[in-house]
């Protein structure tokens, strides 16, 4: 692999390879000394044009646990503030001999733009606009596979603001490539246009959308959606689409609940569900740990093996 830009354009073979590698590397995280020399002498730069704590920290730890140099660029303090274009910023990082740039940007497609521009540096998409967030998709799949033992045939309901969600898109492509069945559930104002042309089933009714689901992946509801008039109130949204012990009864009895975080407790997910009360299986912290593992696997795939490994 040269870049990780999307799961839509990543093959099932590569996805399986990344998940298997993550499963293997996860063992390192359980050690008292969490450090292996695998990526010594390699440099990863995180370039985040949007605020993020958990994803950036996760990448940074993943790099450090594998002995790579990890440098964070806080965009607010960088030359962007002086009006530098994305193109020039990227060329500069390449000239600084970064082996890998992990980028997050509010505009969809910027990682593709970077990958086309840079000839010597790998790009990892850490979330672009409402397009994709492939390592989140991978960590969700790793968590599902770990707990459910398989991906093939799993019924996965993604609930919430699908229209603006890069997590949803990476889940859709990754899961369907691995043989899972995906449903999108949300109010019509938060479903993307022509959603029915995606390889999914679309529901605007939570009871129907959750019916028999093995996994419920709950998306964060951005409160600014309300300001744009896409929702009447958080209260009503919570009543119609909130995941609570009551609404989870529609799903399969042992349904697994995931959330990419950060959560709005009491809005898209009730506190009881988030905390795994009443025998509910929520794996939200496990997702965070698995996040480090899939990012280690990604960095290993891009920087750890000889550059012509894709043959």
């Amino acid at each position, binding site marked *: 692999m040269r870049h990780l830009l999307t799961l*839509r354009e990543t093959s099932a073979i590569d996805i399986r390879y990344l998940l298997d590698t993550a499963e293997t590397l996860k063992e390192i995280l359980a050690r008292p000394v969490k450090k292996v020399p695998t990526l010594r002498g390699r440099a990863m730069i995180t370039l985040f044009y949007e605020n993020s704590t958990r994803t950036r920290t996760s990448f940074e730890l993943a790099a450090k646990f594998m002995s790579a140099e990890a440098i964070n660029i806080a965009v607010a303090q960088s030359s962007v503030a002086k009006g530098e*274009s*994305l*193109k020039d910023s990227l060329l500069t990082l390449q000239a600084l001999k970064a082996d890998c740039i992990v980028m997050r*940007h509010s*505009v*969809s*497609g*910027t990682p*593709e*733009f970077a990958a*086309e521009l840079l000839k010597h540096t790998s790009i990892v998409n850490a979330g*672009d*606009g*409402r*397009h*994709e967030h492939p390592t989140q998709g991978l960590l969700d799949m790793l968590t599902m596979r770990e707990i459910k033992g398989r991906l093939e045939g799993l019924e996965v309901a993604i609930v919430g603001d699908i229209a603006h969600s*890069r997590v949803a*898109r990476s889940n859709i492509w990754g899961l369907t490539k691995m043989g899972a069945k995906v449903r999108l559930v949300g109010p019509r104002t938060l479903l*993307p*246009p*022509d*959603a029915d*042309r*995606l390889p999914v089933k679309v529901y605007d009714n939570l009871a129907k959308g959750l019916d028999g689901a093995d996994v419920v992946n709950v998306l964060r509801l951005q409160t600014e959606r309300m300001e744009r008039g896409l929702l009447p109130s958080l209260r009503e949204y919570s009543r119609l689409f909130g995941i609570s012990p009551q609404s989870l009864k529609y799903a399969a009895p042992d349904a697994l609940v995931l959330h990419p975080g950060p959560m709005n407790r009491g809005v898209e997910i009730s506190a009881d569900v988030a905390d795994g009360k009443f025998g509910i299986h929520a794996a939200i912290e496990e997702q965070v740990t698995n996040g480090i593992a899939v990012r280690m696997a990604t960095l290993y795939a891009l920087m750890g093996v000889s550059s012509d490994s894709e043959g």
Partner: protein
Amino acid sequence: MRLLLHGGRIVDPAQNLDKIADLLIEDGKIAGILEPNTPVADCERRDVTGKVVTPGLIDIHVHLREPGFEYKEDIESGTRAAAAGGFTRVCCMPNTNPAIDTAAVVRFILERTEQVGVARVHPIGAATRDMQGDAITEMADLKAAGAIAISDDAFPLQSAETVRRVMEYCAMLNLPLLTHNEDKALTHKGAMNEGYTATMLGIPGIPRVAEDIAVARNILLAQLTGCHLHLLHISTAGTVELLRRAKADGINVTGEACPHHWVLTDEACMKYRTDAKMNPPLRTQEDCEAVMQGLADGTIDCIVTDHAPHAEYEKEVEFDSAPFGILGLETSFPLTYTTLVKTGVLDFATAIAKMTHIPAQTIGLPPGTGTLEIGAEADVAVLDLETEWTIDRESVQSKSKNTPFHGMKVQGKAVFTVVGGRVIEL
């Protein structure tokens, strides 16, 4: 000064003329269409055997960027691009800096054209001051200085009240109003057509209904005011149908389409190609077919380009941040010939009519404009219908290179033009 273009096939749709003949030009006017080999003394002769001689092409929708954005294009480079595409006359949109909202700017453009232009230029005046959508411009002054029409292109009027007042003034002054039809409340920060491709790419969408609603409103206001409404760059099946019905109802409304709106769909935006980003955006195959049907049945009157140059560095950015617009002048005729004439959607004469005397009439140029009638201005295009070539962004006359047609194989090319009897060869 006499010029004879001899041996060519003369096609002049306005006169229903299509025959092998020699075209005689004298003192900047068409002086005669002669039987081949008619002896003519004392003249410059150009052998155009095997070529087609038509009225110079006319594009009533281009952005020449001067004054204010000369790094994208200027009147010299823009009219050179026009000449390279077979155009002898263009109408330029008012979103310059300063905008074409005063007589002084109109006069400046006409003066620059006089100095450096290789095609004729007619400025189009802004509907509101600085194109802000508020106070209406001094349209009588604009017209007196030489503005050919009024438009809100690039800054579509949102207030129906403002459209109504502008239309009342246009009707009083006998000026057409050229509208960019877009309900901004529905398009927001949209950057491409709303639909499956945008959903897949995660790009905010521009719904088709945003155009249709604005078209319906503008048609109703044209009916109320009696203003001649001309719909710019039609991109949706809905607009074609609204225009068809309005014409059937006898409302004074016309329309135009650009090649990209029937040749390309929103799939051209895959890979976040900013050269496929324009407004209105590339739509769906259904819309392309509706536009072609509208051209074929006469609903859509004119073929235009919306030539909108942008510097390379402006397009080499994040998709959402890239400016809207693509080049058009140098690819319009080849695309029209290849995708409409060769495919049988339009016959050759109709295609030429939609690029010559019909746009001239639509925008209110004097009778005879866009024809080869005796006494008309000697504006001529000489076209080669045989040459197959590949569109190459590196070899354009425009200052900019933003074309989504780079690498496309087309047939047909302008060889040279004649403007007022003067041969323009690049």
